[in-house]
């Protein structure tokens, strides 16, 4: 067991363990941590995990890059697709996908459009999102952020770019939504969702943080179970594969 890892490395390792052999999934733009998680899972326990849904099939990068969406990030791959095929993937959904967010709310809804003001005249305009469908159509998705702050984690997003659990079980049913976010991992903690209320609750805290810090940096009343373990650290073998093979240039350490 090694604790000598960065938050990004821990996030990648933790995510990798949740991906199952034979599944098919991908990540979009700005996706170094998810990409590392997928590549690591293929090396550890999921050799048949298929990376597809974003216009390439099973890339073989020599190193990690911030984006999954240019030739740099592929290195090589088995097949290339276009947005035409992505149109179909978006309707069929993937086994898993990853989202980050400018705002993430207590029910895992994601906002990348605007904060404050109106959509037409926002106080702060976000980048928007290329694909809003994988959240709704995939079997599950993960929320993976590089910050954990009250500005990011809010009670209710100003705009639902990609749906999490909307306003809870009733609204999910009304919208015809299944799937949804499996858990949310940040540099401080792992949070999952109470099955009854579909509200976010603390699942584990990273070794370098505390329940108090996470609660203070979350902008809504985070459910805190009586027993909150420390997030299990990477094993030596996971770290060795991550650093030696997946991320030899140390993008996740910088």
């Amino acid at each position, binding site marked *: 067991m090694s604790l000598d890892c960065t938050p990004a490395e821990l996030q990648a390792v933790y995510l990798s363990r949740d991906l199952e052999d034979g599944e098919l999934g991908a990540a979009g733009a700005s996706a170094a941590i998810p990409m590392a998680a997928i590549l690591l899972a293929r090396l550890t326990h999921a050799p048949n995990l298929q990376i597809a849904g974003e216009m390439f099939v099973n890339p073989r990068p020599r190193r990690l890059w911030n984006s999954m969406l240019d030739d740099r990030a592929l290195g090589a791959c088995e097949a290339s697709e276009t947005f035409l095929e992505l149109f179909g993937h*978006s*309707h069929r959904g993937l086994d898993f996908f990853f989202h980050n967010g400018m705002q993430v709310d207590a029910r895992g809804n994601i906002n990348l459009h605007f904060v404050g003001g109106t959509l037409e005249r926002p106080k702060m305009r976000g980048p928007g999102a290329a694909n809003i*469908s994988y959240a709704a159509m995939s079997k599950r998705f993960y929320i993976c952020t590089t910050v954990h702050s009250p500005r990011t984690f809010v009670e209710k997003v100003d705009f639902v770019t990609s749906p999490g659990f909307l306003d809870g079980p009733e609204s999910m049913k009304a919208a*015809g939504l299944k799937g949804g976010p499996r858990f949310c991992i940040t540099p401080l903690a792992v949070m999952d969702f109470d099955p009854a209320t579909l509200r976010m609750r603390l699942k584990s805290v990273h070794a370098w943080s505390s329940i108090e810090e996470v609660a203070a940096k979350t902008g809504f009343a985070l459910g805190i179970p009586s027993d909150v373990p420390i997030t299990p650290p990477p094993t030596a073998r996971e770290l060795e594969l991550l650093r030696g093979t997946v991320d030899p240039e140390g993008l996740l350490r910088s």
Partner: protein
Amino acid sequence: MSAPANRREKRIAAEEAGALIARALADGDLLAIGGLFKQGRPMALVREVIRLGRRDLKLVSSPGSGFDVDLLIAAGCVAETFLPAVTLEDRMCPAFRGAVEAGTLTAHCVDALSIIGGLLAAANGVPFQPVAAWKGSDVPAHNPLVAPIQCPFTGAALYATRAIRPKLALLHAQEADVYGNVRHLATMTYADQLIARAAETVIVSVDRIVPPDEIVARPRETSIPCIYVDAVVEIPYGAHPTGSFPLYSIDEAHIEHYADLAEAARRGVDGARDRLADYIAAQVHASPRQEDYIARAGGAARMRALEDEAATL
């Protein structure tokens, strides 16, 4: 049988590109730009649009845009965007963000499926494309391209997204022949083929012209057949500072330099607006010839470094 000897070329000289763009694209028209984020963007042609001083353009692209769109906005060319994501990926697009927040730019709320569906509908020659994957999102209710419909077979409620027919498409690829048969060598081609099939006029910049027989030798690799192309123009490094793989990589430092200038201008930092204007004056207006642009962008040494990076991926 070989091709007819006296067939007209679709190759135009780089100096003719501006006049052709001027004829095809008026103020207020819908312009489509190929590539995605930092790859395969037709930057030399985009700078031509800025030099022409086009105003009030509507922009569409493949679902992810960044540097070129931000530059067009910073140069005052754009009134409306139909762009799902506008980002430099590791940071936001400053001019886009600033213009929307200031109310000088209408950033329509669209997503990948409405844009791809719209281009597909136009390419297919039908007025709309059905979409059934927008559960739970606030986007479709605010998307001006979308209307609710019912499936005539199942009765299910779904959406129609409106055909998108750009007035002009600017694309970049690695190779073409003089007749306008375009070949991407890059692995990722995004929506370039769809855009070419959807747009009224299509101009493609390529890093190099190749002999027609090289195209005929591998017809399945022709990514955009000549029948969709109005003109090809050879512009070496025509995608810089975006990447044109496998030939040259992304000039992140150049994009970062621009973003710093534009972000300072957005924040109203003292003198920042002038520095951004100087950048555009030098990189765009003072460099109508690609050789001058490349010299200003670091010259042969910088291009060699980007080529080396692309070669080692």
